[in-house]
């Protein structure tokens, strides 16, 4: 039985028929567009489908049912923090006062939102031990770029043009080196130590007058806390470089570790991970950045300021000449940030600390169960996620992590993150989060163990999986070699616009 619905759908282009739909918008006067010069006018209308509302609704409802989602079931994607998305937050974001506010509205008309943003910045600063936060970046990757650009501005202001390298561990998320490249830096990749942590000696050897920054994820992408982080940060600063923390794994350390206090100069937050804003099928998210004193002058503009009389305003562009400028249009993904704000307020200090406690406990418990049938590369307590490996299974049976992942679908689960981090062979990165019951954790572990047994006894069941999903494994090679990225129908007769 499929874990999702199975009613595959034609495309909207196949469903549309000339003459269907309408009734949403009043008819304009016939001469409305007469003053637009013919040279600027469109000569062929866009071939958009004509559908009536019932067919539109049925199409999108049926499509939605082909999706697995957090609201459907367990989604143990390591590094993604697929926790429950609170429904209060959806309600809050849709309050007309928040939803209908134009981003260029005068400050006097935007006091509610400006206050919310100000309080959210303060809360994130407190959580991270940072001095100040910018809520502007639209996503984690954009937050990373913001952070690295601030570091670049800092070195430029010092007149230090020699620093052209960024150091990252080989376990880093791909966005880290991609970000460094976007900012004009060369990435130097440092191999990790045997125990999965940063190799302090290797970092020390690579640090020098050409190092602008290091980018560290803590806990690491292996789900392990970097116990040597204090020494690493000392070495980084001694070399005249700055330390960036990728905050993707913040769900592990709320109330336990504050990166700013420990010595990180800058970090980003993924509010769509730790702070529960929904993933939306791939976005939107938001990637606020927190900074210490060193980088404070360089934060993007405009910041939200509180006046002595208690009202709030946005900085004027150019008011703070050291800012690196804008990363994007308008203030930020405020609609997403409202959700994060509501989440933080609902939890408070005690609730947030409990989130990390339970996330870490659940991950360790699940790891102990999964260890019954899979390799666990690092023999120490994990944080909110852990890496398991199907390496032994592969050598014994030929069945790979990819196959095991696909077979989990037949058991009713979304697979974990696979083949990341790159430094573990046949990796599965598993992150249960704090919002899953022990029963769910056990059921998932039982499924993984059963699949390991299938790999021995009936491997074709695993290598041919999934068998129950709406579609089977896809031909990704043809899709990449001969991409079909656009529906191209034969030109159909469209009814001329009425009136």
């Amino acid at each position, binding site marked *: 039985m499929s874990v999702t619905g199975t009613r595959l759908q034609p495309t*909207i282009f196949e469903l549309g028929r000339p003459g269907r739909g309408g009734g949403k918008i009043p008819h304009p006067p016939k001469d409305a567009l007469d003053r637009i010069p013919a040279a600027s006018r469109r000569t062929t209308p866009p071939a958009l489908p004509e559908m009536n509302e019932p067919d539109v609704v049925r199409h999108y409802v049926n499509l939605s*049912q082909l999706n697995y989602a957090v609201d459907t079931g367990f989604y143990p994607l390591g590094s993604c923090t697929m926790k429950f998305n609170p429904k209060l937050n959806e309600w809050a974001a849709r309050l007309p006062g928040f939803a209908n506010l134009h981003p260029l509205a005068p400050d006097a008309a935007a006091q509610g939102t400006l206050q919310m943003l100000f309080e959210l910045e303060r809360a994130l600063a407190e959580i991270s031990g940072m001095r100040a936060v910018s809520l502007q970046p639209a996503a984690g990757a954009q937050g990373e770029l913001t952070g690295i650009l601030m570091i670049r501005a800092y070195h430029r202001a010092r007149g230090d043009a020699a620093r052209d390298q960024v150091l990252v561990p080989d376990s880093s998320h*791909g966005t880290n080196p991609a970000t460094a490249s976007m900012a004009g830096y060369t990435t130097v990749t440092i191999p990790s130590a045997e125990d999965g942590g940063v190799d302090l000696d290797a970092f020390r050897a690579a640090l020098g007058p050409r190092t602008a920054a290091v980018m560290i994820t803590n806990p690491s992408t292996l789900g392990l806390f970097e116990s040597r982080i204090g020494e690493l940060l000392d070495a980084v600063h001694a070399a005249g470089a700055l330390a960036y923390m990728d905050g993707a794994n913040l769900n592990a350390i709320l109330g336990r570790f504050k990166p700013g206090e420990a010595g990180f100069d800058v970090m980003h937050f993924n509010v769509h991970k730790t702070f529960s804003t929904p993933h939306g099928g791939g976005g*939107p998210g938001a990637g606020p950045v927190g900074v210490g004193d060193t980088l404070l002058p360089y934060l993007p503009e405009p910041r939200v300021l509180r006046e002595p*009389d208690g009202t709030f305003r946005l900085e004027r562009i150019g008011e703070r000449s050291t800012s690196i400028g804008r990363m994007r249009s308008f203030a930020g993904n*405020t609609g997403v940030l409202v959700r994060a704000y509501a989440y933080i307020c609902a939890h408070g200090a005690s609730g947030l600390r409990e989130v990390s406690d339970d996330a870490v406990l659940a991950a360790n418990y699940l790891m102990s169960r999964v260890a019954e049938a899979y390799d666990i590369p690092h023999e120490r307590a994990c944080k909110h996620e852990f890496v398991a490996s199907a390496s032994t299974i592969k050598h014994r049976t030929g069945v790979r992590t990819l196959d095991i992942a696909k077979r989990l679908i037949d058991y009713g689960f979304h697979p974990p993150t696979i083949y990341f981090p790159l430094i573990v062979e046949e990796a599965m990165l598993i992150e249960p989060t704090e919002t899953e019951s022990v029963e769910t954790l056990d059921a998932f572990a039982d499924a993984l163990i059963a699949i390991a047994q299938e790999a021995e006894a009936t491997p074709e069941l695993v290598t041919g999986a999934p068998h129950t999903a709406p579609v089977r494994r896809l031909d990704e090679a043809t899709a990449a070699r001969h*991409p079909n990225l656009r*529906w191209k129908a034969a030109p159909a007769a469209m009814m001329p616009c009425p009136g």
Partner: protein
Amino acid sequence: MHYGPHTAADRARMLGALGLSSIDQLFDDIPAALRASKLDLPDPEPELELAARLSALAARNRTDLASFLGAGVYRHWSPPAVDQILLRGEWYTAYTPYQPEISQGTLQSIYEYESLLAELVDLDVVSASHYDGAAATAEAALMTCRQTHRDRVLVSRAVHPHYRETLRTYFSGGLQLEEIPLVAGGDAAGTTDLDALERMLAEPDRPVAGVIAAQPDFLGLLEPMPAIGELAHAAGALFVAVVEPIGLSVLAPPGAYGADIAAGEGQPLGIAPQYGGPYLGILATTDALVRQIPGRLVGMTTDLDGQRAFVMTMRAREQDIRRDKAASNICTNQALLALAASVYLTTVGPHGLRDVAALGAARASELEAALAAVGAPRIHPGPYLNEFAIRVPNARLIHRRLLDRGILAGLVLADAEPGDTSLADGLLVCTTEVTTRDEIDLFAEALAEILGGRPAGVEAGAGSGGSALAGSAR
């Protein structure tokens, strides 16, 4: 207290299985000197109280105004079907479709979005979307540099100031960004100066990678896009058109006038203003440039049984695989907003979309006449679709007085473009299909009174919150 299910008994059971007595032991690997000081945040707020406080916060925003403010974000009627579909948990709580077998909903909806936008922009390839119009424009600019192996990009001063500021940030590493001036007077005032562009393209030893112009431009005016494109191509540069999707139902699309890349903001397609986002960055290009386009792409394929299906494709371009060699670090796409745009477009339909654009234009004609009649004429003479700049003396003060009367009279241009003295007394106003005749009359009458010096009664005094006048330049 959080949303998780663990009771004391659950925790005890899990700890027992691990042979531990306390969760604290799982954090022993944090060096003592680095353990956090306490979290200085308020106590948890029960839902009932939090909801009341959130309502009160939202109510402090003035969203009841008669708004003529556009400048890159536009009020449109979003059919309720859009949001009700978006509220399905299978859409908004799903993740990136890395496991395509159980993500066909998201994947097909993105493919349909790509196809719908391809029709609107009349270009072959549309990415699964970028953060917003500004990021999309920046990525487009970077594409021109990569493709041509040149490092100089020209952007019209009539492109949205936020987009130009964002470009400046993205280009601050050694790529060169220059602004093309605008025509100062005459029929083409407020649009890109073609003579200046030609001179900039002809500078010896400084080849240009890309030329960027917007249609309509930030001031609402229609630009000579084919001419700009010809000049760019003659110099071996690529042409990037910044577009607005509703207008594309009635204006010539980028594909028709030879643009190589189109970028723009998809917010008008059924997405609420939300004070800045999340929005929908549109990025599209020709087949020839498909390998340069950053971000997600979804394509059609078949499964093992020959069943048609959809999958993320050409993945090896992206950051998780290419890492430091990726064209962009982008990981997210605005999937849920792309879905909103698709539902909007299919619900409103092609005729409805055209009516949205035409109604906005009709209202704009009415507004232009009404405002000119009370002494606030347009600054520029050229054609526009539904947005234009008017001149009023002391624009900032007038804007404030109108705000006190419940009218959001567009954007104070002196704040948005402080360097342009021709806009010093300008307000950028727009209308859409939701603007009513009553709102237009209200605006015109209030303006008449203010300009005539006769207050209509007691002025609102401190108004709604006494801080700085005028929308700060942001």
